Protein backbone atom coordinates (compact mmCIF):
# COMPACT_ATOMS: atom_id res chain seq x y z
CA UNK A 1 0.00 0.00 0.00
CA UNK A 2 1.17 3.49 -0.80
CA UNK A 3 -0.83 6.42 0.61
CA UNK A 4 -3.50 3.85 1.23
CA UNK A 5 -3.57 3.09 -2.49
CA UNK A 6 -3.05 -0.25 -4.17
CA UNK A 7 0.04 -0.22 -6.38
CA UNK A 8 -0.55 -1.50 -9.91
CA UNK A 9 1.95 -2.56 -12.57
CA UNK A 10 0.90 -3.54 -16.06
CA UNK A 11 3.08 -4.96 -18.80
CA UNK A 12 2.41 -6.10 -22.32
CA UNK A 13 4.10 -9.10 -23.81
CA UNK A 14 3.31 -10.43 -27.28
CA UNK A 15 -0.07 -8.89 -28.03
CA UNK A 16 -1.72 -6.19 -30.11
CA UNK A 17 -2.05 -3.66 -27.30
CA UNK A 18 -5.83 -3.95 -27.34
CA UNK A 19 -6.06 -5.15 -23.75
CA UNK A 20 -4.35 -1.99 -22.54
CA UNK A 21 -6.80 0.03 -24.62
CA UNK A 22 -9.60 -1.95 -22.94
CA UNK A 23 -8.29 -0.80 -19.55
CA UNK A 24 -8.65 2.80 -20.70
CA UNK A 25 -12.07 1.87 -22.09
CA UNK A 26 -13.38 2.01 -18.54
CA UNK A 27 -14.14 5.67 -19.43
CA UNK A 28 -15.38 7.61 -16.41
CA UNK A 29 -15.18 4.52 -14.25
CA UNK A 30 -11.39 4.65 -14.47
CA UNK A 31 -11.65 7.59 -12.06
CA UNK A 32 -13.25 5.28 -9.48
CA UNK A 33 -10.41 2.84 -9.99
CA UNK A 34 -7.78 5.59 -9.74
CA UNK A 35 -9.15 6.66 -6.38
CA UNK A 36 -8.00 3.35 -4.97
CA UNK A 37 -5.10 2.47 -7.28
CA UNK A 38 -1.76 4.03 -8.07
CA UNK A 39 -0.55 3.10 -11.55
CA UNK A 40 3.24 2.73 -11.39
CA UNK A 41 4.23 0.97 -14.55
CA UNK A 42 1.99 0.89 -17.59
CA UNK A 43 3.43 0.91 -21.11
CA UNK A 44 0.70 3.16 -22.51
CA UNK A 45 0.70 5.68 -19.63
CA UNK A 46 4.06 5.80 -17.90
CA UNK A 47 7.66 5.73 -19.10
CA UNK A 48 9.03 3.36 -16.48
CA UNK A 49 11.55 0.80 -17.67
CA UNK A 50 12.18 -1.04 -14.41
CA UNK A 51 9.69 -3.12 -12.47
CA UNK A 52 8.66 -1.44 -9.18
CA UNK A 53 7.26 -3.46 -6.26
CA UNK A 54 3.47 -3.67 -6.63
CA UNK A 55 0.36 -5.25 -5.13
CA UNK A 56 -1.31 -6.15 -8.40
CA UNK A 57 0.39 -6.91 -11.70
CA UNK A 58 -1.57 -7.18 -14.93
CA UNK A 59 0.05 -9.10 -17.77
CA UNK A 60 -1.36 -8.98 -21.27
CA UNK A 61 -0.05 -11.00 -24.20
CA UNK A 62 1.75 -14.31 -24.40
CA UNK A 63 5.42 -15.32 -24.34
CA UNK A 64 6.77 -15.20 -27.88
CA UNK A 65 10.20 -13.55 -27.53
CA UNK A 66 13.04 -13.74 -25.02
CA UNK A 67 12.07 -10.27 -23.80
CA UNK A 68 8.52 -11.46 -23.06
CA UNK A 69 9.89 -14.24 -20.87
CA UNK A 70 12.15 -11.81 -18.99
CA UNK A 71 9.29 -9.32 -18.46
CA UNK A 72 6.94 -12.00 -17.15
CA UNK A 73 9.53 -13.30 -14.67
CA UNK A 74 10.32 -9.77 -13.44
CA UNK A 75 6.62 -9.00 -12.98
CA UNK A 76 6.17 -12.19 -10.96
CA UNK A 77 9.09 -11.26 -8.71
CA UNK A 78 7.77 -7.76 -8.00
CA UNK A 79 3.98 -8.20 -7.88
CA UNK A 80 2.06 -9.90 -5.10
CA UNK A 81 -0.84 -10.88 -7.34
CA UNK A 82 -0.59 -11.52 -11.09
CA UNK A 83 -3.63 -11.30 -13.36
CA UNK A 84 -3.37 -12.78 -16.84
CA UNK A 85 -5.58 -10.38 -18.78
CA UNK A 86 -6.84 -11.18 -22.24
CA UNK A 87 -6.93 -14.29 -24.37
CA UNK A 88 -3.23 -14.08 -25.32
CA UNK A 89 -2.10 -14.19 -21.71
CA UNK A 90 -4.57 -16.90 -20.72
CA UNK A 91 -4.57 -19.20 -23.76
CA UNK A 92 -1.75 -17.98 -25.99
CA UNK A 93 -4.06 -16.03 -28.26
CA UNK A 94 -4.44 -15.66 -31.99
CA UNK A 95 -0.73 -15.92 -32.73
CA UNK A 96 -0.86 -19.30 -30.98
CA UNK A 97 -1.77 -20.53 -34.47
CA UNK A 98 1.96 -20.11 -35.10
CA UNK A 99 2.32 -23.45 -33.33
CA UNK A 100 1.20 -25.09 -36.53
CA UNK A 101 4.48 -23.92 -38.11
CA UNK A 102 8.14 -23.93 -37.14
CA UNK A 103 9.97 -20.77 -36.09
CA UNK A 104 12.08 -20.96 -39.26
CA UNK A 105 9.01 -21.23 -41.48
CA UNK A 106 7.48 -18.17 -39.84
CA UNK A 107 10.63 -16.04 -40.06
CA UNK A 108 11.16 -17.07 -43.67
CA UNK A 109 7.59 -16.29 -44.67
CA UNK A 110 7.52 -12.90 -42.94
CA UNK A 111 10.94 -11.60 -43.96
CA UNK A 112 11.76 -13.35 -47.22
CA UNK A 113 8.91 -15.04 -49.04
CA UNK A 114 6.01 -12.62 -48.71
CA UNK A 115 5.34 -11.23 -52.23
CA UNK A 116 5.42 -7.64 -50.98
CA UNK A 117 8.70 -8.10 -49.11
CA UNK A 118 11.71 -6.57 -50.88
CA UNK A 119 14.42 -7.64 -48.43
CA UNK A 120 16.07 -11.02 -48.36
CA UNK A 121 17.49 -11.23 -44.85
CA UNK A 122 16.25 -11.87 -41.34
CA UNK A 123 16.86 -8.90 -39.01
CA UNK A 124 19.07 -9.60 -36.02
CA UNK A 125 19.54 -6.19 -34.39
CA UNK A 126 17.24 -4.28 -32.05
CA UNK A 127 14.88 -7.16 -31.42
CA UNK A 128 15.19 -10.06 -29.00
CA UNK A 129 15.05 -13.56 -30.37
CA UNK A 130 11.81 -15.27 -31.30
CA UNK A 131 11.15 -18.26 -29.07
CA UNK A 132 10.45 -21.65 -30.57
CA UNK A 133 6.78 -21.66 -29.63
CA UNK A 134 4.04 -19.40 -28.29
CA UNK A 135 3.53 -19.95 -24.56
CA UNK A 136 0.68 -18.73 -22.37
CA UNK A 137 1.89 -16.77 -19.34
CA UNK A 138 1.00 -19.43 -16.78
CA UNK A 139 3.39 -21.96 -18.21
CA UNK A 140 6.28 -19.66 -17.31
CA UNK A 141 5.10 -18.09 -14.04
CA UNK A 142 2.38 -18.70 -11.44
CA UNK A 143 -0.79 -16.77 -12.24
CA UNK A 144 -3.26 -15.82 -9.51
CA UNK A 145 -6.24 -14.86 -11.65
CA UNK A 146 -7.31 -15.22 -15.26
CA UNK A 147 -9.49 -12.86 -17.25
CA UNK A 148 -9.79 -14.01 -20.87
CA UNK A 149 -11.35 -11.95 -23.65
CA UNK A 150 -10.04 -10.27 -26.79
CA UNK A 151 -10.05 -7.86 -25.14
CA UNK A 152 -12.24 -8.52 -22.09
CA UNK A 153 -15.13 -6.05 -22.09
CA UNK A 154 -14.56 -3.07 -19.78
CA UNK A 155 -17.58 -4.30 -17.80
CA UNK A 156 -15.66 -7.44 -16.74
CA UNK A 157 -12.39 -5.58 -16.15
CA UNK A 158 -14.13 -3.11 -13.87
CA UNK A 159 -15.91 -5.86 -11.98
CA UNK A 160 -12.68 -7.81 -11.52
CA UNK A 161 -10.66 -4.79 -10.43
CA UNK A 162 -13.25 -3.58 -7.93
CA UNK A 163 -13.63 -7.10 -6.49
CA UNK A 164 -9.88 -7.25 -6.02
CA UNK A 165 -9.56 -3.73 -4.61
CA UNK A 166 -12.37 -4.28 -2.15
CA UNK A 167 -11.12 -7.76 -1.36
CA UNK A 168 -14.40 -9.42 -2.29
CA UNK A 169 -14.74 -13.02 -3.32
CA UNK A 170 -14.17 -13.41 -7.05
CA UNK A 171 -16.96 -14.67 -9.27
CA UNK A 172 -16.39 -17.28 -11.92
CA UNK A 173 -18.82 -16.77 -14.76
CA UNK A 174 -19.56 -19.64 -17.09
CA UNK A 175 -22.04 -18.07 -19.52
CA UNK A 176 -21.31 -18.41 -23.22
CA UNK A 177 -21.60 -15.79 -25.95
CA UNK A 178 -25.03 -17.29 -26.80
CA UNK A 179 -26.33 -16.07 -23.46
CA UNK A 180 -25.80 -12.48 -24.54
CA UNK A 181 -26.99 -12.94 -28.14
CA UNK A 182 -30.57 -12.01 -28.97
CA UNK A 183 -30.95 -14.32 -31.98
CA UNK A 184 -33.52 -17.12 -31.67
CA UNK A 185 -32.27 -20.67 -32.13
CA UNK A 186 -34.84 -22.54 -34.14
CA UNK A 187 -34.91 -25.74 -36.10
CA UNK A 188 -34.66 -25.29 -39.87
CA UNK A 189 -34.46 -27.39 -43.06
CA UNK A 190 -31.04 -26.06 -44.09
CA UNK A 191 -29.12 -29.00 -45.54
CA UNK A 192 -25.67 -27.60 -46.32
CA UNK A 193 -23.09 -25.43 -44.60
CA UNK A 194 -23.11 -21.93 -46.04
CA UNK A 195 -20.26 -19.48 -46.47
CA UNK A 196 -20.29 -16.00 -44.99
CA UNK A 197 -21.23 -14.31 -48.26
CA UNK A 198 -23.56 -16.99 -49.59
CA UNK A 199 -26.88 -15.46 -48.79
CA UNK A 200 -28.78 -12.73 -47.05
CA UNK A 201 -29.05 -13.51 -43.38
CA UNK A 202 -32.05 -13.30 -41.13
CA UNK A 203 -31.11 -10.92 -38.32
CA UNK A 204 -33.44 -12.56 -35.82
CA UNK A 205 -32.34 -16.17 -36.24
CA UNK A 206 -29.25 -17.96 -34.88
CA UNK A 207 -26.36 -18.41 -37.32
CA UNK A 208 -26.21 -22.15 -36.63
CA UNK A 209 -29.89 -22.47 -37.61
CA UNK A 210 -29.03 -20.71 -40.86
CA UNK A 211 -26.15 -23.05 -41.69
CA UNK A 212 -23.28 -20.76 -40.73
CA UNK A 213 -20.47 -21.80 -38.41
CA UNK A 214 -20.63 -19.60 -35.30
CA UNK A 215 -18.55 -20.34 -32.20
CA UNK A 216 -20.85 -18.50 -29.80
CA UNK A 217 -21.99 -21.63 -27.97
CA UNK A 218 -18.43 -22.78 -27.30
CA UNK A 219 -16.98 -19.43 -26.27
CA UNK A 220 -16.93 -17.76 -22.87
CA UNK A 221 -18.89 -14.54 -22.73
CA UNK A 222 -16.34 -11.91 -21.79
CA UNK A 223 -17.54 -9.50 -24.49
CA UNK A 224 -21.34 -9.05 -24.07
CA UNK A 225 -21.80 -10.62 -27.52
CA UNK A 226 -21.36 -7.63 -29.85
CA UNK A 227 -20.49 -9.68 -32.95
CA UNK A 228 -23.53 -11.97 -33.32
CA UNK A 229 -25.82 -9.12 -32.29
CA UNK A 230 -24.42 -7.09 -35.19
CA UNK A 231 -24.57 -9.79 -37.82
CA UNK A 232 -21.10 -11.32 -37.51
CA UNK A 233 -20.50 -14.93 -36.49
CA UNK A 234 -18.56 -15.44 -33.26
CA UNK A 235 -14.94 -16.44 -33.92
CA UNK A 236 -14.33 -17.58 -30.36
CA UNK A 237 -11.95 -14.83 -29.33
CA UNK A 238 -12.50 -15.17 -25.57
CA UNK A 239 -11.47 -18.81 -25.70
CA UNK A 240 -13.37 -22.04 -25.03
CA UNK A 241 -16.02 -22.56 -22.37
CA UNK A 242 -15.34 -24.18 -19.01
CA UNK A 243 -17.10 -27.32 -20.24
CA UNK A 244 -14.74 -27.75 -23.19
CA UNK A 245 -11.72 -27.11 -21.02
CA UNK A 246 -12.82 -29.57 -18.34
CA UNK A 247 -14.14 -32.49 -20.33
CA UNK A 248 -11.49 -34.43 -22.25
CA UNK A 249 -13.87 -35.51 -25.00
CA UNK A 250 -15.63 -32.19 -25.52
CA UNK A 251 -14.11 -30.03 -28.16
CA UNK A 252 -14.92 -26.91 -30.14
CA UNK A 253 -15.83 -28.87 -33.26
CA UNK A 254 -17.71 -31.67 -31.50
CA UNK A 255 -19.94 -29.27 -29.57
CA UNK A 256 -20.65 -26.96 -32.51
CA UNK A 257 -21.42 -29.91 -34.79
CA UNK A 258 -23.70 -31.49 -32.18
CA UNK A 259 -25.77 -28.34 -31.73
CA UNK A 260 -25.80 -27.35 -35.39
CA UNK A 261 -26.89 -30.81 -36.53
CA UNK A 262 -29.79 -30.68 -34.05
CA UNK A 263 -30.89 -27.31 -35.43
CA UNK A 264 -30.49 -28.10 -39.14
CA UNK A 265 -30.60 -31.11 -41.45
CA UNK A 266 -26.81 -31.12 -41.81
CA UNK A 267 -25.01 -34.25 -40.63
CA UNK A 268 -22.80 -33.73 -37.54
CA UNK A 269 -19.92 -35.61 -39.19
CA UNK A 270 -20.00 -33.22 -42.18
CA UNK A 271 -19.84 -30.21 -39.86
CA UNK A 272 -16.91 -31.73 -37.97
CA UNK A 273 -15.07 -32.41 -41.21
CA UNK A 274 -15.75 -28.87 -42.41
CA UNK A 275 -14.39 -27.42 -39.18
CA UNK A 276 -11.31 -29.62 -39.24
CA UNK A 277 -10.45 -28.21 -42.66
CA UNK A 278 -10.35 -24.71 -41.20
CA UNK A 279 -9.17 -25.79 -37.74
CA UNK A 280 -6.36 -23.25 -37.60
CA UNK A 281 -9.01 -20.52 -37.67
CA UNK A 282 -11.40 -22.10 -35.19
CA UNK A 283 -8.76 -23.13 -32.66
CA UNK A 284 -6.39 -20.20 -33.22
CA UNK A 285 -7.13 -18.37 -29.98
CA UNK A 286 -6.55 -21.29 -27.67
CA UNK A 287 -4.37 -23.87 -29.37
CA UNK A 288 -1.20 -22.72 -27.59
CA UNK A 289 -2.46 -23.70 -24.16
CA UNK A 290 -2.02 -27.24 -22.87
CA UNK A 291 -5.66 -27.13 -21.76
CA UNK A 292 -6.52 -27.50 -25.47
CA UNK A 293 -3.23 -28.68 -26.96
CA UNK A 294 -3.08 -31.81 -24.79
CA UNK A 295 -6.65 -32.87 -25.50
CA UNK A 296 -6.83 -36.34 -27.01
CA UNK A 297 -9.39 -35.02 -29.49
CA UNK A 298 -7.24 -32.13 -30.74
CA UNK A 299 -5.36 -33.35 -33.81
CA UNK A 300 -4.29 -30.12 -35.50
CA UNK A 301 -1.25 -31.52 -37.32
CA UNK A 302 -3.33 -34.34 -38.81
CA UNK A 303 -6.02 -31.88 -39.93
CA UNK A 304 -3.50 -29.54 -41.55
CA UNK A 305 -1.76 -32.44 -43.30
CA UNK A 306 -5.10 -33.64 -44.69
CA UNK A 307 -5.82 -30.22 -46.20
CA UNK A 308 -2.33 -29.97 -47.66
CA UNK A 309 -2.58 -33.45 -49.17
CA UNK A 310 -5.68 -32.38 -51.06
CA UNK A 311 -3.94 -29.41 -52.68
Amino acid at each position, binding site marked *: MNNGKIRLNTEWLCDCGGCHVALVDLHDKILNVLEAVEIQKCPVLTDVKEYPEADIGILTGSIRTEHDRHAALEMRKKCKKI*IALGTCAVYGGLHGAGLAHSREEIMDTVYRRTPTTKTDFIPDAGVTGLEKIVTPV*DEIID*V*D*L*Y*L*PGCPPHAH*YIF*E*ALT*DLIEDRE*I*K*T*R*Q*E*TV*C*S*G*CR*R*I*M*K*KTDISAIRNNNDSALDDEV*CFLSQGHICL*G*SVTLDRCLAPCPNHGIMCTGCAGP*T*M*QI*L*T*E*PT*HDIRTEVS*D*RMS*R*LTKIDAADIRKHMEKSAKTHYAYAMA*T*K*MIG*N*KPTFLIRKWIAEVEDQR
Partner: protein
Amino acid sequence: MLEMTIHDKSCRGCRFCLDVCPTDCFVFNEETQKAMVAKVDNCIACLSCTSICPAAAITHRNHHVVANFYRNINFSRRMEKFL
Protein backbone atom coordinates in the same frame (compact mmCIF):
# COMPACT_ATOMS: atom_id res chain seq x y z
CA MET B 1 -33.77 -30.82 -2.31
CA LEU B 2 -32.47 -30.51 -5.84
CA GLU B 3 -33.04 -27.21 -7.59
CA MET B 4 -32.84 -26.48 -11.30
CA THR B 5 -33.12 -23.02 -12.82
CA ILE B 6 -32.97 -21.57 -16.31
CA HIS B 7 -31.54 -18.11 -16.67
CA ASP B 8 -34.39 -16.66 -18.68
CA LYS B 9 -32.50 -13.92 -20.43
CA SER B 10 -29.83 -16.35 -21.62
CA CYS B 11 -32.27 -18.95 -23.06
CA ARG B 12 -32.17 -18.92 -26.87
CA GLY B 13 -35.21 -21.13 -27.33
CA CYS B 14 -33.36 -23.98 -29.05
CA ARG B 15 -35.36 -26.67 -27.19
CA PHE B 16 -32.25 -28.85 -26.82
CA CYS B 17 -33.02 -29.35 -23.13
CA LEU B 18 -36.48 -30.66 -24.00
CA ASP B 19 -34.91 -33.00 -26.57
CA VAL B 20 -32.24 -34.48 -24.31
CA CYS B 21 -33.95 -34.63 -20.92
CA PRO B 22 -34.59 -38.34 -20.17
CA THR B 23 -37.25 -37.52 -17.58
CA ASP B 24 -39.14 -34.69 -19.31
CA CYS B 25 -38.46 -31.96 -16.78
CA PHE B 26 -38.92 -29.08 -19.22
CA VAL B 27 -41.76 -27.47 -21.13
CA PHE B 28 -41.57 -24.85 -23.86
CA ASN B 29 -43.34 -21.54 -23.48
CA GLU B 30 -44.55 -20.71 -27.01
CA GLU B 31 -45.37 -17.18 -26.03
CA THR B 32 -41.92 -16.22 -24.76
CA GLN B 33 -40.14 -18.80 -26.97
CA LYS B 34 -38.17 -19.97 -23.96
CA ALA B 35 -37.80 -23.26 -22.07
CA MET B 36 -39.13 -23.57 -18.54
CA VAL B 37 -38.58 -26.06 -15.74
CA ALA B 38 -41.88 -27.89 -15.22
CA LYS B 39 -41.17 -30.92 -13.03
CA VAL B 40 -37.98 -30.54 -11.06
CA ASP B 41 -38.97 -33.61 -9.01
CA ASN B 42 -38.30 -35.72 -12.09
CA CYS B 43 -34.73 -34.51 -12.43
CA ILE B 44 -32.09 -37.20 -11.93
CA ALA B 45 -29.23 -34.66 -12.23
CA CYS B 46 -27.72 -36.35 -15.27
CA LEU B 47 -26.75 -32.82 -16.40
CA SER B 48 -27.39 -33.64 -20.07
CA CYS B 49 -29.27 -30.36 -20.37
CA THR B 50 -26.39 -28.36 -18.90
CA SER B 51 -24.03 -30.02 -21.29
CA ILE B 52 -26.07 -29.34 -24.43
CA CYS B 53 -27.34 -25.84 -23.51
CA PRO B 54 -25.57 -23.43 -25.89
CA ALA B 55 -25.86 -20.54 -23.44
CA ALA B 56 -24.85 -22.37 -20.25
CA ALA B 57 -28.17 -21.08 -18.94
CA ILE B 58 -29.20 -24.10 -16.83
CA THR B 59 -27.96 -24.36 -13.26
CA HIS B 60 -28.42 -27.23 -10.79
CA ARG B 61 -28.06 -26.84 -7.06
CA ASN B 62 -27.98 -29.38 -4.23
CA HIS B 63 -27.23 -32.27 -6.57
CA HIS B 64 -24.68 -34.99 -6.05
CA VAL B 65 -21.43 -33.91 -7.69
CA VAL B 66 -19.28 -36.70 -9.09
CA ALA B 67 -15.57 -36.38 -8.30
CA ASN B 68 -13.40 -34.91 -11.04
CA PHE B 69 -11.49 -38.09 -11.71
CA TYR B 70 -11.78 -38.00 -15.49
CA ARG B 71 -11.52 -34.25 -15.93
CA ASN B 72 -8.77 -32.28 -17.62
CA ILE B 73 -6.29 -31.75 -14.81
CA ASN B 74 -4.61 -28.80 -16.56
CA PHE B 75 -7.80 -26.82 -16.40
CA SER B 76 -9.31 -28.15 -13.20
CA ARG B 77 -6.36 -26.69 -11.26
CA ARG B 78 -7.07 -23.27 -12.74
CA MET B 79 -10.87 -23.23 -12.79
CA GLU B 80 -11.35 -21.39 -9.50
CA LYS B 81 -9.05 -18.63 -10.66
CA PHE B 82 -11.10 -17.60 -13.71
CA LEU B 83 -12.75 -14.21 -13.45
